[in-house]
């Protein structure tokens, strides 16, 4: 039973190379269905991950999750489609979830640290798909000047997601690690740099530069802004609480 749960979790929260199969399946779907499936996979994957025993301090899991996160972060640099960006981000966050499990973090950490900003990001991608039908950056650009509320939420969510490696490093503080864990911290720091680089490239392509004239632009509604802002504020407050746990 445990093996079954582990295998199922590996497909729902994929690590490289299984992620190739999972992404291939997800990418064949329509854009909106991709987003729904990614959300369902991620949410259920976290609950299943919690059920898997004997992963804590498992160096093989740590190694594979780090390599997977690093590999997909590197690939994120040249992604030209927001849908693909979302898929790669999903694999990176899955890798971090496995890494957190092997460190010994509880489910609440990835629920409150990973999920809120990722949900908001997915909501923004859904909005783009709904509004424009396509999410390729060569077609959409300059949304910052025509959709300011959307842009603010998109950028805020992305920056919060990008700081997840630092949160994991902060949790490693408490372990007072030695030996191989130093390497984990160094790799996470490098991943952090690259994930920010990729995020800035995405922002530059979607939010900055000049808007495409042939589209009609309508920003997100006030209600949607309030809901998304509340989720992000919750994550920020939780992050401060999370950091405060480490403060002495």
């Amino acid at each position, binding site marked *: 039973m445990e093996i079954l749960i582990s295998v199922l979790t590996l497909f729902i929260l994929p690590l490289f190379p299984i992620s190739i199969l999972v992404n291939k399946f997800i990418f064949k779907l329509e854009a909106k269905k991709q987003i729904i499936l990614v959300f369902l996979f991620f949410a259920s994957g976290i609950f299943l991950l919690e059920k898997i025993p004997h992963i804590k301090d498992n160096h093989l899991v740590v190694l594979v999750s780090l390599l997977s996160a690093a590999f997909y972060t590197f*690939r994120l640099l*040249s992604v030209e489609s927001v849908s693909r960006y979302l898929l790669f981000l999903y694999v990176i966050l899955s890798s971090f979830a496995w890494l957190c499990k092997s460190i010994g973090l509880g489910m609440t950490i990835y629920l409150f640290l990973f999920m809120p900003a990722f949900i908001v990001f997915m909501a923004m991608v859904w909005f783009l798909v709904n509004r424009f039908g396509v999410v390729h950056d060569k077609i959409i650009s300059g949304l910052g000047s025509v959709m300011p509320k959307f842009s603010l939420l998109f950028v805020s969510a992305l920056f919060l997601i990008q700081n997840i490696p630092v949160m994991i*490093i902060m949790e490693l503080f408490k372990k007072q690690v030695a030996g191989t864990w130093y390497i984990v911290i160094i790799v996470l*720091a490098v991943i952090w*740099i690259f994930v920010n680089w990729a995020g800035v490239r995405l922002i530059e392509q979607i939010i900055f530069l000049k808007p495409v004239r042939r589209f009609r632009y309508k920003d997100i509604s006030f209600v949607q802004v309030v809901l998304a802002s509340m989720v992000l504020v919750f994550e920020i407050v939780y992050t401060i609480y999370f*950091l*405060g746990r*480490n*403060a002495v």
Partner: protein
Amino acid sequence: MERILQFISVVTFLIPLFSSFLTLFYSFVIKKKSYKISIFFAYLTLFSSFVLTVIFFISNIRHFRVFENSIFYMSITSLSIIVLLFVSLVSLVIHLYSIKYMFDDEGYIRYFVLLDLMIWVIFGLVISGNIIFMLGFWHMMGVVLYFLLVHNYKRRQTCKYGYYTLFTHMLSDIPFLFAAYLIYAYYDTTNLDTFLSIVSNRITVHVLFFDITISSVIAFLIMLSAIIKSAQFPFHIWLPFTLEGPNPVSALMHAGIVNAGAFLANRFAPLFVFGESALHLALIAGFITAVLGSLLMLVQNDIKKALAYSTVGQMGYMMLEIGSGAFALAIYHMMVHGIFKASLFLGSGGVIGEARESNNISNKSIFDFYFKDPKEHLPSKISFFMIVLVAPATLAYSIFYIFNAFNYQSGTLFFFFAWASGVQAVYALYHNSKNFKRFLFFTTILYITALIWYLLAEHFFNILLFTNTGLLKELYMKAQIPNAVFYTMGGIILSVYMISWIFTYCKIGKNCTDMKYFIKVYNFFYRILVRDLYILDFATKYSKKTVDLSLAINKKLKY
């Protein structure tokens, strides 16, 4: 009294954040007029900082704490108070300048919201006493600065150069992150005061290997972080390219943000008694940056870029001061440089406009003036050499006698650069004078006054910022490098100065035929300097290769 100070400090800290949110919120209601909220709170911030400063110095309390044993722990010292007041003042000036300057820009209110957020982040960095809290603000400084710089984000160049800034700031976050980790892992605390107290009292000494202690590693990492943030070579590339951002943002950056490294070094000052390598790193980095920044400034043909490289040079001097143990002097330098550079940037727009309308550009060179007709200008030559030799000698003697400045290498370093700067200033300014003798006389007086003022300022700031004079002496002692290395470095730079002055004279003089080889060397170095030592080209090439490699993998793997 301490309760009043605690209350005012919390209020001062929160005002810019409150202003930022309120301005954003009211922009949906009153649109562009919500900038007035930001201006009002900028005045309030300055008033609050001023009241805090007055009460702090009247009360004779030199250090107070707020929210102890929490992540929001604030540890407020005289350093924090001075920097808070300074930043509030600069912030108000920039707010007022921006009212009209930015009025026609898209994102007018966004600019004010981000400006208030930046001031809040700087305040947070200055008052935080918890290392994680401080690290958070250290990181946020880079992020908020990025969004301020990409104000005109419709231009591709602006986005590209904005990223260089963010990337460099993130690089500076990493050593700080590792230092914070080591502090927590080995000293079991994130409280900055507790950590410094443990280190200073030598309660526990953790040794890694080869007698390298953890405290020296932490000191090295902190200094590295400060060096990267303060645009030291080779991490200076981002600074000239921040000119894509609005002028007031450049002013704020050159006045406040780029000085964050000096603040961090001062905040961790007691740690550097156990981290000689950190001080030596600062000395070398500062030395190289001071020389290179000044050289790079000389080859610029754009006034704002010249100012930016001038800032690079000044940051080098500041780091040199830290590396030689003069921490308080670095704070004074930071403030004075901040004010003068911010005013230069704010005024540069007007200067450029005027220069475009005027045709009066002087072609006279110093050596034409001095050596074209030696008989006519003999008295000037004597007075010229006087400033080169006599003035610093007199000054050095007086200062040596009064302040014993030559007990440490920092004194020698200070006078060396003062002499070089003074001579260079005279060279640069002479052609504006109608009566050179009078000009030289008054310049000498001003020069000596400025030097004595500088020394007095160091003395004053030392008393203000460091109550423990033993710590100051220890820092000066630890900053000493072997005399052979020190005097070799001095000799090299002295030779560079003398050769370049002689070369400039020969180049402009009548008989240049024997100088062909030197002109080739000059042209070679000029080409390298104009391309900023090809650092940007190197970084652009390899970042493009990285992205191309990522693209190749994506094309092959697809999923």
